[in-house]
């Protein structure tokens, strides 16, 4: 459903995304994890066709910016931006008109979603008068109304109440069962724990590893949170190694990464550092002391 090959996005000299490769099949829930500024939102905007980029993005076989691709794609932005001067009902009607959907079917579906997200009382309220959480719920319904085959959610849980988070998680799982591919970008790992099939971990604009859930079962890193911290911290520490010339340390005691699609970084490859090398990281201060002693 989604194929991203060699996506590179530069803003002037700054590289926001570098050679990002992603793929999602129908019914798969992919999560894009990474700290702030890792390039998750930029990657999603490129997939949506909102930003110019180098590389290929195909959605259901169509180029990202084509209207065929847009027709089968739903998007929930990081910050809900609705038309202030439309009521919730009108907002939905606009989506129905924009996607040229069947009115009766959409009305029924919208009523169901409104009920699930407990928005019944505010359907005739102007969007500007809604709270942020409510706006986020409206935004989610807007994305779901066209019944997309690919759903892109950029930090969808931000501002939602626990009930809505539970509902959204359930909804995402239902959609996946119906064959919808879902890509969730988040740094709130707990909210996607248990529903993901594929996890892409991003750091400094690159996908540093990709994990499939079925490959993780029974392994120490089954928890997404553990995978995330292991991957990102080892990546960071390797960066630090590059700068301060670390003394060689003991080999890894934990099992090596099961990352499959992750492209090795050129510097990493030379160092032959395992990806879960947190235990081996020598503190920079200690290194400095050692180097002083040597002198």
């Amino acid at each position, binding site marked *: 459903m989604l194929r991203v090959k060699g996506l590179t*996005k530069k*803003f*002037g000299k*700054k590289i*926001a995304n570098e050679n990002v490769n992603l793929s999602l099949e129908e019914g798969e829930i992919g999560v894009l994890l990474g*700290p*702030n*500024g*890792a390039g998750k939102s*930029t990657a999603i*905007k490129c997939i*949506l*066709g*909102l*930003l*110019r980029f180098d590389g290929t993005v195909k959605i259901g076989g169509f180029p990202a*910016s084509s*209207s*065929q691709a*847009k*027709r089968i*794609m739903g*998007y929930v*932005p990081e*910050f*809900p*931006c*609705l*038309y*202030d*001067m*439309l*009521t919730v009902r*009108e907002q939905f*009607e*606009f*989506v129905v*008109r*924009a*996607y*040229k959907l069947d009115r009766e079917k959409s009305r029924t579906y919208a009523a169901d979603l409104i009920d699930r997200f407990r928005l019944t009382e505010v359907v005739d309220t*102007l969007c500007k008068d809604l709270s942020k959480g409510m706006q986020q719920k409206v*935004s989610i319904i*807007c994305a779901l109304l066209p019944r997309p085959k690919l759903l892109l959610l950029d930090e969808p849980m931000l501002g939602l109440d626990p009930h809505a988070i539970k509902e959204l998680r359930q909804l995402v799982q239902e959609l996946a069962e119906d064959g919808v591919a879902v890509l969730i970008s988040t740094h709130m790992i707990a909210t996607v724990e248990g529903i993901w099939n594929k996890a892409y971990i991003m750091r*400094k604009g690159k996908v540093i590893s990709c994990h499939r859930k079925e490959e993780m079962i029974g392994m120490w890193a089954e928890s997404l949170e553990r995978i995330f911290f292991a991957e990102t911290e080892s990546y960071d520490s390797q*960066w630090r190694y590059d*700068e301060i010339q670390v003394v060689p340390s003991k080999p890894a005691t934990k099992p090596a990464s099961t990352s499959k699609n992750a492209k090795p970084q050129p510097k990493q490859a030379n160092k032959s550092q395992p990806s879960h090398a947190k235990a081996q990281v020598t503190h920079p201060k200690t290194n400095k002391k050692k180097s002083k002693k040597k002198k």
Partner: protein
Amino acid sequence: MNACMFLIFKQWRNSLREKIRHPQFWIGALIVVAYFALYIYQEINHIGRSGILDNAEATYKGAVVFVFLILMFVGLGIGLNQGNAFFSSADIDHLFVSPIRAEKVLLYGLIKKCLFSVLATLVLLMQLTNLRFYFGLGFQDLLILMGAWLMLSICVSVAAMAVYSVSAPSPVIRWVIRLSLYILSATIIVGIVIALWKSHSPWHDIVTFFNDKHLHMIPLGGWTCGFLFAAMDGNIDHALIYSGLMALLLLINILLIFHNRSAYYENVLTTIGRGFGKLNRSETSSTDSVSGKKVRKSHLLGFRRGEAVLLQRQMTEQKRSLTVLFDRTSIAMFAIAIVLGAVLQSLMRKGMYPFIMQILALAVLCYSMIFLLPMGKFVEELEKPFIYLMPGRSFKKLFYVSTAPVLKAFVESLVCLTIVSLFARLHPAYVPCGAMFYASAALLFYACYLTSLRTMGVSNNRHGHMVLSFALLSAVFIFELSLGTYIGRRLYAVDPALFVLDFLILAVFNIAVSIVFFFNAKSILDYRA
């Protein structure tokens, strides 16, 4: 109704419904109705009468060229700089990602933009009586004028959109278009200055300058004027040529828009402040910044403590955005000063008293300043929680918040008054004294705004605050005028050169009034929090 039309109609209807609930709308509506009534009364009263001015035709033509060129520059400037003039954040998340064709999305942006032209057309309609009465325009002339106006409105909107879609993907193209606009406007200003250089009748020479047929060669504004004047003179051939040129330009612009249809998305994101590019441009260090990278120095921040950090922060922001004490509006002020200097020079040759020229220069500059004063920064600061939460005295906090723009006004006026003084050979002491007055007027403006906030209470109605602060400012200025006249007369009697001290005294008066207003308004930091 398609989705875009649905969006325009429903938003317009809902905003109207929302507005009629507020009394401010009814006050505004009352003013418009009163203006209409006055217009109709004037129309009835003036039937069969006329008070045609001397040199009416040339004045009318000069004024039309001036207004049309200004409209052109403003329109193209909007197209060059502001993606959010056409699209909003909601458009990005809902319209851009929808399967609606890019051309339709652009058309939607264009229609939204053109709605503002409708309001401008209404304003012109209100002036038809005056045009008929003072310039002797017949029914046919008025019809041609309206036609030219509509032609320009549509063409400028389309051209703005075309400039926007062309310049969005390439910073180089944007830079080239901006440079050419600057060069064109600079050429016109230089032309005015040259026209006035040795002039003995400045008004007549400005009118003559704008009647120059070479100006009709400028695309859009100039061509529309060419069409208008040719049609009014009954020169059908020329009118057809100019209207043909306009139609050709319109066609090229539409083609450009269609050709670059998908290139504008990123630019809108950046303009609205949601793009990574914006982040990159401001060079804000992200949380990922690796140690060892070049870190931006904080410049003035951290130089002093306490309430002064508000000033330092503003100055640091200004320095990062462009310069510490100048911004883009300063360029406009300098341009105004140059033209003003040229006018004053010709007045000087006619034997105008220097003290009148000094008053005139400050009056024009202060009046322009009101429109160009960066009110936004000041108001933004009051909308952020930091000023309410940080420890310190309320008066000092308010004082420091307003200091950066006042300092900017002071330095800006030093340059402007130097230009004016060089042109009109005014007393050198006029420059610092006038600059003090100018800066104190800026301070007074902020003080009046704070007083309006204090008076109207917690309200987000910025227009209401602006109206009240303008009324307050006018009241202070009227009193100041009589005070200045009284003191100025006495100083002038002692020695004409001493007249400049009058501005210094008035500056002190302004500062004193501002301090009183600041003290009065300081409690807003308590109750607004």
